[in-house]
């Protein structure tokens, strides 16, 4: 069985017992993210949306490459891969809005 490490950003750690990374079993990005939600139900809705897709304001990197455009949730993951959950870090003065 394939296992991978999921690295979590600070804002999401409060929803998984303060852990900065979690090792889970799963052969694709989608399997791993769904396993993460099963293991830490408080994360539900924060990475995947109600349709099971990765939320617009979140990116998932697999071994340094953005899964968006590289197979997305169906992308295969190698044993020992590292997934990094990247929240959109944004803002600004918004003076023209």
């Amino acid at each position, binding site marked *: 069985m394939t296992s991978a490490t999921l*690295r979590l*950003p*600070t*804002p999401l*750690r*409060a929803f998984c017992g303060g852990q*900065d990374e979690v090792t889970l079993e799963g052969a694709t990005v989608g399997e791993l993210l769904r396993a993460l939600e099963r293991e830490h139900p408080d994360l539900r809705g924060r990475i995947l949306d109600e349709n099971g897709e990765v939320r617009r304001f979140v*990116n998932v*990197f697999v071994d*340094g490459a*953005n899964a968006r455009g590289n197979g997305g949730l169906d992308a295969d993951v190698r044993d020992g891969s590292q997934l*990094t959950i*990247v*929240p*959109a*870090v*944004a*803002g*600004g*003065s*918004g*003076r*023209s*809005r």
Partner: protein
Amino acid sequence: MDNRTVQIEIDPDQLARAIERSAAELPNEACGLLLGTDHGDGRVVVERVEPTRNATREPAADTFEVHPEDFVRLDGLARELGLDVVGVWHSHPDSAAIPSRTDTERAWPGWSYLIVGRAAHSDVHARSWRLDATARFAEERLLAPRGAVAVAS
């Protein structure tokens, strides 16, 4: 999450990196990440102020988005150094270092948000903020040990 005032310590030389990058990116907003240690007792120590690319697809003069590839790279650097991503910094090219509505709408809890402001009739200045329990920004106590938190433009 409570509403204690957080103290954030940044070496002035590191703070100067954000101020210099902000000037270099004018008229656009500059942005980046703060690497350091959140001691969990209301004290955050920033060791590195790192710039990133501004990947916003809106006008860069008044919005920013940290390029996700840069986030991954700096998260890895932080781990190598025994640090963590403890916050975000960005500039307001023509307004004060006070969070805007856009900043508030797009902010995440648990991070410091350092802003370099450049308001009319005001020196360049820096202030730091954090979302409180009501999802509003509360100001942090910014300490730059050798004193200066502002440089002339």
